[in-house]
């Protein structure tokens, strides 16, 4: 159990846990791993996902309405860990559900469930002392977001905080300004950001937000270790009957690397246009 990207580019698959239900999320995660996902990000549904676009908002709303809780997400994590000992597992949450349980108890339970790292959407490095302490005590990797708007000074702090617990994960580079799931013209942002980040870290860099097909993945693979696919998967799940979701997502993940071979010419800029 560790976060590593053996094939290039690595694939990080985001799932809103409990959409459509907890068992299906588990099955989808297993299928994603079997079809090449290196890391699963288990998203904790939250009532007010202000960094998310409509697709993940809807998924979150459905899961919250079903009563899915952070503790349920940990149960799913544990099941995935038991079934796939080598996969990377990241808990992905807004801060409030974590604060509600308590940062220290949550980190302990996350470690018990076999989680490798935690990403909190609205946790910035300046506020992270107590959080990093709890991660360190439980040998968990902190995954921080880095944004195209982050000046170098912040990227340096993010790089340092990412190593602060002694358990390495990756740095999550946001491909462009904006919320999850929307398309954009500003694709130069991603490569520029990754280049700037490299000055400060040797950790793998995963690029996410708006990455939705094999062409995007191939393009990201030219300058980063991994691509994060979120809304595209969540949207697919929304459109697929629950009993077929694992198969459909598995096939989708498998095909994401199709375009990643050397024959693929189109860069990320072309992909976005």
């Amino acid at each position, binding site marked *: 159990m560790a976060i590593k990207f053996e094939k290039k580019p690595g694939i990080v698959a985001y799932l809103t846990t409990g959409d459509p239900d907890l068992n299906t999320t588990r099955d989808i995660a297993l299928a994603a791993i079997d079809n090449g996902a290196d890391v699963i990000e288990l998203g904790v549904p939250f009532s007010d996902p202000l960094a998310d676009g409509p697709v993940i908002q809807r998924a979150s709303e459905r899961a919250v309405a079903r009563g899915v809780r*952070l503790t349920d997400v940990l149960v799913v994590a544990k099941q995935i860990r038991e079934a796939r000992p080598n996969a990377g597992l990241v808990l992905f949450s807004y801060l409030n559900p974590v604060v509600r349980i308590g940062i220290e108890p949550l980190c302990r339970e996350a470690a018990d469930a076999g989680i490798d790292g935690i990403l909190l959407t609205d946790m910035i490095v300046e506020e992270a002392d107590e959080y990093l302490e709890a991660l360190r005590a439980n040998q968990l990797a902190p995954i921080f977001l880095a944004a195209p708007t982050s000046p170098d000074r912040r990227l340096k702090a993010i790089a340092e905080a990412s190593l602060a617990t002694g358990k390495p994960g990756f740095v999550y580079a946001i491909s462009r300004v904006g919320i999850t799931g929307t398309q954009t013209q500003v694709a130069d942002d991603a490569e520029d950001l990754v280049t700037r980040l490299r000055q400060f870290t040797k950790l793998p860099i995963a690029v996410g937000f708006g990455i939705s097909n094999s062409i995007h993945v191939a393009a990201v693979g030219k300058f980063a270790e991994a691509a994060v696919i979120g809304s595209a998967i969540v949207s697919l799940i929304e459109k697929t009957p629950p009993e077929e979701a694992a198969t459909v997502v598995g096939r989708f993940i498998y095909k994401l690397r199709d375009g990643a071979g050397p024959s693929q010419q189109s860069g990320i800029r072309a992909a976005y246009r």
Partner: protein
Amino acid sequence: MSVAAAITEEKTSPAQATAGRFGAYGGRYVPETLMAALEELEVAYAAAQADPAFHAELNGLLHTYAGRPTALYYAKRLSETLGGAKIYLKREDLLHTGAHKINNALGQGLLAKRMGKQRIIAETGAGQHGVATATVCALLGLDCVIYMGQEDMQRQEPNVYRMRLLGAEVRGVTGGSATLKDAINEAMRDWVTNVRSTYYVLGSALGSHPYPTMVRNFHRVISIEARQQILEAEGKLPDAIIACVGGGSNAIGAFYEFLPDTSVELIGVEAGGRGTGLGEHAARFQKIGGGTPGVLQGTYSYVLQNDAGQISSTHSVSAGLDYASVGPEHAMLHDSGRASYVSCSDDAALKAVVTLSRTEGIIPALESAHAVAEAIRIAPTRSQTDIIMVNLSGRGDKDMGILARELDLKGASDVS
């Protein structure tokens, strides 16, 4: 101490490593994409604060455009009717656009202009902050987009028309309960997306640093004036100050200069809605069925939430108080006991609208009516030498639709 000097003085405790803490509360909890913008804002605001030209321009507009200073009015008939303390009203309802919100909108509008931002966004609940922001954008020649919950657009319809007339684009928000919290979510999504070109005029003492401090400072003028006015009128400080608390901007503005005057009781009034159960009110400080510390929309404060950390829905007859969290400075004042927080039901607020209208000829906003209701409740228990000051944050024009329905003003019967 001069006003400018007082405003520059910082009160954060040195023990706090991070910016914008009020005791344990406040801070910055936002997606990283916004951090550069918050840092830019912090620097620009500090520079503006230290610049006499900024204050001169703002004070000039507050005076000649918005109508400051606002009157401190002795509500004689109301006081005599209740037969207890003397009630004074700080008349923020007399300001241009009809509520205290213009104090902050002017301040942030000038700041945005100084920062070279041409595109302005804001959220609004009751529509008063949206109207104030749209007004300032018209005044300064800025582009304006206002996010407002669909539910609030319906219940505060006149303000929607005012914003559009002023040239703002009003974007209806349907997510969640389609009220203030959801409008803030959508405004934040816009800001994350357009952060390079856009200034977010947050409308209450909420959100991430520097907003709670900045918004409070733009409203401090309320208590700076009121303190002087009451001393002139009565030769002594008031015994109590009462203000309604949505996000907490009018209340913190009305309280702030009196914080060191420990003889002055500070009372915040939250929306008690239609019951004490979660979802029936917006009383974050209510003992049972109230809020617990958490993080919502960028700040650590009291939050109405369930035991899984999902934000609770809220209810209030007043859109401006209908919000699940509260400004972090109020959380600190609550915990320290320097201010106390009570709640007032929808019904009591509606009754207070009628009482104030018919004793004084002043129709308060439903939000402000919560503060009036608390004054009505406690005044009879106080001595006739006691002075209660109510911050009348806004006027009731926007509420005519609700009032006509709830108070049966359409002709048939009467309310008493």
